[in-house]
């Protein structure tokens, strides 16, 4: 990458849009992941009794769906990022590359 090319990319508004959006989305999604997980760990550490609460008189406790949901949420959040990246970022990157030629 030449200095001229670098300059052209960093001054391209599309590049700024890409970086701003990716930093924001990546940051928000990371924060959500961390919050969900630390919330789960927090329950285990400080309130394990809550996770052991039976659901509606069944043997199944509320901790089971919560744990499974943490696993599913990790997959879904990853999917959200991949969807946004596939539909938005790839197009922006293609255009930025074309503009830099």
């Amino acid at each position, binding site marked *: *990458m030449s200095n001229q*090319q*670098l300059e052209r*990319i*960093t001054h391209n508004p599309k*590049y700024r849009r*890409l*970086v701003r959006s*990716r930093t924001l*989305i*990546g940051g928000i*999604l*990371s924060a959500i*992941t*961390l919050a*969900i*997980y*630390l919330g*789960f*760990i*927090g329950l*285990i*550490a*400080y309130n*394990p*009794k809550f*996770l*052991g609460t*039976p659901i509606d008189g*069944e*043997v*199944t*406790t509320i*901790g*089971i769906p919560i*744990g*499974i949901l*943490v*696993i*599913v949420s*990790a*997959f879904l*959040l*990853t*999917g959200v*990022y*991949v969807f946004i*990246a*596939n539909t938005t970022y*790839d197009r922006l*990157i293609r255009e*930025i*590359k074309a503009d*830099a030629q």
Partner: protein
Amino acid sequence: MSAALRVLAAVAVALAPTLCFADALTEQTEKEPVNYLAIGMFVLFVILTLGITKWASKRTTSTAQFYAAGGGITGFQNGLAIAGDYMSAASFLGISGLVYKSGYDGLIYSVGFLVGWPIVTFLIAEPLRNLGRFTFADVASFRFQQAPIRILAACGTLVTVAFYLIAQMIGAGQLIKLIFGLDYAIAVATVGVLMILYVSFGGMVATTWVQIIKACLLLAGASFMAFAVLQHFGFSTEAMFKEAVFNHPSGVKIMAPGNLISDPISAISLGLGLMFGTAGLPHILMRFFTVADAKAARKSVFYATGFIGYFYILTFIIGFGAITLVATDGEFLDPALLAAGKNVIEATKGGTNMTAIDLAKAVGGDVFFGFISAVAFATILAVVSGLTLAGASAISHDLYATVFKKGAALERDEIMVSKIATVVLGAIAIGLGIVAEKLNVAFAVGLAFAVAASCNFPVLVTSIFWRNMTTRGAVIGGFLGLLVAVGGVVFSPGIWVDVFGYPKGSAPFPYANPALFSMTIAFLGIWIGSKLDRSKRAAIDRAGFEAQFVRSQTGVGAESAVCH
């Protein structure tokens, strides 16, 4: 080379059936009878994978092929291979065994092992592919002085790989002794020799296909078992939990978090270690260089997260199902232990690590039992191959080619060094695996994750995102993280009391996992070390950020895939 490979392959294949007879020579009472069906299926797996290795060996003549399979792996294939690398026998047998033993606690580990993947997707995967070629050190050292960062990354890699590898080797030996009725040392040596063959002859191409095949076999086998369990309970998880609570000596306690986590600090520390350790495992990070571009890297983590999450849900069902289907069946219980007053869980033959294997027999008979046994063996083999390749690459690419030869090594020499490193690492792993047979290595995987989270991850993620980081800051923070993580584990109750045998409560570091502290110290070290750095080099390091960041975001200038 291919002639040598043919000879070695022939030896390995010829060796496998004769291994059965080794059983007759030893007189251990606890050993299971020789399991010919399982050995037969495993030999089939070995023949298939050695065939692939032979095919791959013709292609691994360049470093791009040897380390990164020429970038010719698709996103979906890489997703499977990442899953194959990550779903170790420790997670398959260990977590289903943990669920069998203490119920809900197993789920805590499953969740912890999974939540690192979104972080890898959001922060690491794409910049990693855009900036690097073969190892994560390529990325961590991108704008810095090469030698110090490469040495740091190689230390982080080798410590992580060494502990992970030893844990897998010892687990492998004990498991194979139980399942196949083979001698421990022969089992460890078989794993070591096969791993050396795959990696040294087939490089990343063969390693990738071994992972993919193993991932498919493991997912298929675990799916069938979970399906059979659910079918037994009329597809009602409530019925499954109800019976489990009825049959388990701990009763309703298995439906809530129990004794696994003793104090809040340890819980949070373990959680952070598992989460960020995933994002710093060298053999996992290396997999992102096998795909064509950042888009494929991103897709591959998505597939991998799906496969791994699905797999952990299966292990949970397998563990709970086994409480009813294994622990109530006299065939799987040791009468001597029962007579000695042990409960049905404690008296399970071969210990709780055999849960998944026993369940295979309970739901699928001898043929399926043989299949799952062979899959467990294949699983260990695939994981140790990935680890060895990562360790060998750190030695040949980071230390030999970049530090020692200052980037001017001949490609042929670099591959040769990598192959020698593979053989040496394999030999060390076999040796230590045999010597440490009786050692309790439960801490080893935890230590591997702690080091990955405290050395590799902080250096990598800060180098990608923080403009003001300098070489000096990276070295200070990285080595501090590494030392504190290793020290924290050595002085924790897990080693100090359980391995060294000092009295209970005397451990200098009171928590079960150091990650909370060692990660904080690593990030602080990087921050302070960089902030106070006024050297000439620091100016170069900071000036290099702009170009690096543009490349990490757009992929302009990134190493393109080499066509097959």
